């Protein structure tokens, strides 16, 4: 029962406005909707959706706006972003956003979030303190678009090591690619993830082949989805949150069946809002692997995050895999970089 002294709060039972309102007292959330009520589905066209439903920081529907730019021939995303900013909207939710709308939202300092499903559920997610922490943790772990180098080390019980070096590029919530730089046997091999789609390109095979997220491209404890990880908030929602003295414990549940792990239990440093440990679990809560985040480092450009990630697994007793990050920096990429056709040319992105 001592645990209950520390894990005092199940935040889902709290007043839902707390987190978002705490950050922005005047929070106004606009959700792209296919109809005028909150039971409707979220629109997949942020710029040209039929309606925007505006909610206040307590989750109350305060206004229904018919999108004046829904039939615009061009520039709908940009004009919609500016229109909502003028109405005081601080966060826009839609299923997809165009590049120009993202650019306009950034210059207006409007936050945005890609979500699928029902408008009413989206508001619950947006106002949940746990999900807010998760979104912030994602941004603290890496910028939305960046490049970095990683070294993967598989360590066997006898101390024998095998190392791989990867160049990684990521853009937005759902695009990430990695290119093997070494060893020679793996050089030129690349993997691409576009949302839940994954491909592997092996120079000897000569074409990208579709793979599944649970497979491992390097052997050892890390699998494809660890190597090509998307933002946690993209794949998981917070089912439950506990608050300890200096940590949050987030219980995450996969949004879809195609996500590699059904559940995650994540320990988050309260001050830094960075993960310290994650347990990856099956639906029946069986432990698949544990990920430890270590050696927080300043990469420059306001990127301060763990530079070493260790993984062990009860399925691989005595084995350990380590990921070391280097040269992480913000970088903008064209969407076309994250396509199957571009995979053989990922090397051209290295500067």
């Amino acid at each position: 029962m001592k645990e209950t002294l520390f894990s005092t709060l199940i935040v889902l039972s709290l007043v839902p406005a707390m987190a978002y309102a705490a950050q922005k007292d005047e929070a106004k959330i606009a959700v792209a909707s296919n109809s005028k009520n909150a039971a409707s589905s979220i629109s997949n066209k942020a710029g040209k959706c039929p309606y925007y439903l505006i909610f206040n920081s307590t989750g109350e529907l305060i206004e229904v706006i018919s999108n004046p730019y829904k039939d615009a021939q061009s520039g709908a995303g940009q004009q919609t972003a500016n229109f909502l900013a003028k109405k005081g909207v601080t966060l826009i939710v839609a299923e997809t956003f165009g590049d120009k709308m993202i650019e306009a939202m950034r210059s207006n300092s409007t936050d945005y979030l890609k979500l699928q499903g029902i408008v009413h559920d989206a508001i619950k997610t947006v106002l949940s303190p746990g999900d807010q922490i998760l979104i912030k943790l994602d941004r603290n772990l890496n910028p939305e678009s960046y490049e970095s180098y990683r070294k993967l080390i598989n360590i066997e019980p006898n101390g024998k090591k095998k190392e791989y070096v990867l160049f990684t590029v990521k853009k937005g919530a759902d695009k990430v690619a990695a290119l093997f730089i070494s060893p020679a046997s793996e050089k030129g091999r690349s993997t691409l993830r576009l949302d839940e789609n994954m491909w592997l390109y092996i120079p000897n095979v000569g074409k990208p082949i579709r793979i599944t997220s649970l497979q491992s491209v390097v052997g050892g404890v890390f699998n494809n989805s660890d190597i090509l990880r998307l933002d946690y908030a993209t794949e998981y929602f917070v089912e439950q949150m506990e608050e300890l003295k200096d940590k949050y414990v987030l219980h995450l549940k996969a949004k879809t069946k195609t996500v590699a792990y059904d559940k995650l239990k994540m320990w988050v440093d309260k001050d830094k809002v960075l993960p310290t440990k994650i347990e990856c679990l099956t639906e029946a809560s069986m432990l698949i692997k544990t990920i430890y985040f270590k050696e927080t480092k300043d990469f420059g450009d306001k990127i301060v995050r763990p530079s070493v990630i260790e993984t062990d697994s009860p399925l691989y007793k005595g084995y350990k895999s380590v990921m070391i990050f280097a040269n992480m920096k913000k970088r903008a990429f064209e969407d076309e970089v994250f396509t199957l056709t571009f995979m053989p040319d990922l090397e051209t992105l290295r500067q």
Partner: protein
Amino acid sequence: MRLWPALAVLLTISYGMALGEEEYSFDLSEIEKKPLHIGGYVEFRPALFGLDTNSSLYKLNSYDRDKENIREEYNFSALLDGSYKKGTTEFRAIVNTDLRKSYLGWSEETTLYEGYMSTRPSSMFNFNIGKKTLKWGTGYAWNPVAFLDRPKDPYDPELAREGFVVASADYIKSFDGPLKTFSFTPVLMPVYDHINDDFGKINRLNFAAKTYFLLYDTDIDLLFLTGGSKTNRYGMDFSRNITSNFEIHGEFAFINDFKKRYINSDGTVFNNEYDATSYLLGLRYLTKSDTTYIFEFFHDATGFTESEMTDYFSFIDQGYDTYLASGDDSLLTRASNLAEGSYNRRNPMRDYLYLRASQKEPFNILYFTPSVTGIFNTNDKSFSVGPELLYNGVKNLELRLRTNFLIGDSYTGYGEKQNDFWIGFRVRYYF
């Protein structure tokens, strides 16, 4: 120019200090980009073949030799892969040399697998000219839509690495919404004396194209080939993940006016012209215990029927009997000439099932992958089955032991292959 190594050393030291207690290091000189890159591998492949001296194909290939039950073969190969990048342009060459000691003595063959210039002015465009593989299709063992590729060995799909001389381009465009990616790849392929002259009819400039869509999380390709070196052909393929451990794929190819030459048992040659529709359906499934199953069904409408193959085998037997009786090998020579590109294909018949099961790292042996591959000819019920052990736990070294048993009745596809079994070892070192 000496700044970079100094910086790399400095950063390595600082990393070493930061990570000192775990003893991890990340030498940043490892990520330095160099304009010139030379890599590749060397390998040694000894193999042992158990011959079926009563099989038709043994008789066809070895009628003028003393009968042998076992043959040894030693292969040494070196593959050199070099590239030079300047700005947005890359020059690349892949050259392979095979040195073989077989029952025919020593032989050497050097082949330019690929040699091309590639330029990428932006992430949306790419242009290539030179010898290059295109590797179209989503199938693992077979690719009926690979209109511009050399046929591959279902047991070793990586072997077909030699390309053709082409000029090609890629245009890529990404979108938000159900259609995430569109790309268009037009290809010009000249077939003249000494240029791609093993592809088809010469003195033709062929045009082919592939249009790719990532639509509703499904890879879809539409493809065609025209120009006269081969008859016009059109294709479509797809691939899609159903869950995080289950993928499906397929290919459909339509070939206009396909011309098939076949022989009956008394040696009369027939030419048949028809529109052929071939297809492949497959899946890849990963179990919770890390076993990957790849399953494919291939219907090849350009292949031979069971009775056509039976006729061919009985014609060879007839030719062999004639040779034994009179020393006249003209019938066998005729059978051999007919085989080229048709009867001697690895899978010359119409319907095949492919199953590969591989187990990742059993018994916690890291980098060890045992697997078994089976190909079943559903037309004549003959089959081949081959276990394989692969280990790549030592840096840049790959060890592979593979066997294959070919099983079938008389006058069946696998029953009449010249080997009953073979066993091969491959040690490959990458540099």
